């Protein structure tokens, strides 16, 4: 089955899937309201550019939601609107159940934001900057909480250092510490691991998991698929200002992923036998491997048929491997649509 066919299938099924999800929400999910609810959100920048087009999105309490999309898709714009940094053009957004315009105080109190860019005050100390953030968000001083946050982020030793003396990775940690200073219910991480070394990336993933265990809702944007794959419960794909898909990660993988079956042959083949000509089968260069690609949503009948045919042809194999396509492949398929 070719990529094009898979995509055609996807674009037709996505709205149905969404409707289906909505249905489940109404019937099964208790009155728990989503932590983030975006309805018919549009954003037109001052220069007339339509950055977001009729975005509808619900993010449940306590989940890790990855917003995946290429550069310029509108990820930062969406986050900026939810956090109050950019104005809504039309539509409605709620955070923690509060309208972000009418009830902006309650909405914003519940949100912590780690922006994409590293914006810091050079002359402030680490401790001062984090305490400032807590105060700004209306919380009384809590040195013990700030101490804990700094220790969790390995910044404790640096608490009295000026920010300008910190390395890039430490500044990134500091931005996270600031975002966590007021104990938010919802945490936004806008491309948290862009340009970050492997160690810090691991630490961050670790931290995100810990936060989730404590019930924090986490929304992260990324264009690293591995990040979404590793971290997220659900994935939304945004492209040119439109959400083109929202799915549970596992379901996304199984529904949209293509599976590959590799048969390691005892004896090499020169060509693909005529009986298999109509099947999506390829032969490796050395002739030792038959590769069969199929849509994992399909019945497994194709596999059985293939194996039967091979049996009829007396082609012997010593090993079978199956592999699911990675999110990356799915993603590339989606955004190149």
């Amino acid at each position, binding site marked *: 089955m070719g990529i094009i066919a898979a995509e055609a299938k996807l674009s037709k099924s996505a709205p149905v899937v969404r409707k289906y999800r909505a249905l489940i929400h109404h019937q099964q999910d208790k009155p728990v309201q989503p932590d983030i609810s975006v309805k018919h959100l549009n954003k037109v920048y001052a220069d007339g550019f339509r950055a977001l087009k009729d975005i509808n999105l619900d993010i449940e309490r306590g989940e890790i939601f990855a917003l995946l999309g290429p550069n310029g898709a509108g990820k930062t714009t969406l986050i900026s609107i939810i956090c109050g940094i950019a104005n809504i053009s039309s539509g409605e957004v709620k955070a923690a159940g509060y309208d972000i315009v009418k009830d902006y105080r309650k909405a914003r109190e519940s949100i912590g934001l780690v922006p994409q860019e590293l914006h810091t005050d050079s002359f402030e100390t680490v401790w001062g900057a984090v305490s*400032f*953030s807590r105060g700004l968000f209306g919380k009384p001083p809590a040195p013990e909480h700030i101490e804990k946050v700094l220790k969790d982020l390995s910044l404790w030793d640096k608490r009295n250092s000026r920010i300008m003396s910190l390395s890039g990775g430490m500044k990134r940690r500091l931005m996270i510490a600031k975002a966590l200073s007021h104990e938010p219910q919802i945490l936004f991480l806008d491309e948290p691991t862009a340009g970050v070394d492997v160690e810090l990336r691991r630490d961050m993933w670790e931290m995100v998991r810990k936060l989730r265990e404590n019930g924090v809702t986490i929304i992260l944007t990324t264009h690293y698929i591995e990040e979404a794959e590793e971290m997220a419960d659900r994935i939304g794909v945004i492209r040119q200002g439109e959400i083109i898909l929202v799915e549970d990660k596992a379901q996304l993988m199984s529904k949209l992923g293509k599976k590959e079956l590799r048969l390691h042959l005892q004896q090499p083949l020169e060509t693909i036998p005529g009986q298999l000509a109509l099947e999506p089968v390829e032969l490796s260069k050395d002739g030792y491997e038959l590769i069969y690609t199929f849509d994992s949503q399909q019945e497994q009948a194709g596999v059985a048929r293939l194996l039967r045919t091979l049996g009829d042809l007396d082609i012997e194999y010593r090993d079978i491997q199956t592999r699911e396509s990675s999110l990356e492949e799915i993603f590339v398929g989606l955004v190149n649509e």
Partner: protein
Amino acid sequence: MNLYGVRAIYNFEMARMRRTLMQSVASPVISTSLYFVVFGSAIGSRMGDINNISYGAFIIPGLVMLSLLMQSISNASFGIYMPKFSGTIYEVLSAPVSYVEVVLGYVGAAATKSVILGVIILLTARLFVDYDVLHPFWMFAFLVLTAITFSLFGFIIGIWADGFEKLQIIPLMIVTPLVFLGGTFYSIDMLPEVWQTVSLFNPVVYLISGFRWAFYGVSDVHVGISVGMTLLFLTACMVGVWWIFKTGYRLRS
């Protein structure tokens, strides 16, 4: 009311002033002292009294006003321009603070600094010239009102400015001439009639006149008019700030 938020901004700004103590306090004090040396002692000794006030004493209110205006504008405009410039403004925009609270924090801190500075300059002046304050309450009221008004004005400039030149240009090109032509060094009625009329369009005339009245009980225009004009500017600046936040002008895209 998010008082912790106001306090956070206010303290942050005050800490910034402490870090730049030399710049914030020393330079206006030095330049004011130079004015006293040049105009008060060197030239002033050859000038006659104005309205029975020695020339050195006469220029004190104007010089304090000069520093007060310049400092209020530069403190407040830098205070809001810097986070805009460095990008740290994102945090304030995403915080549960109303625009009144943001203004209280930034403008409050800028005005506090200016008032402290005004007092320091007054004390410095005392080293050069003997003077009395006839109406201390009004003197302080003018000091505070002017500091608030021009800090608000500076706040507006800081939001409007999209480069460092623009930050400097208004204080330099507009405020300095207005202060010099606003009766710092002379009484308006020493001018030819035409220029007296022209001067009445200079808002700073009312500030200096009223401020001087608080010191010596003499003024170019009636003190009631000075108070009224000061409140008028204050209101105008508040409306400007209100409009900025209402529309998100240059803060929220």
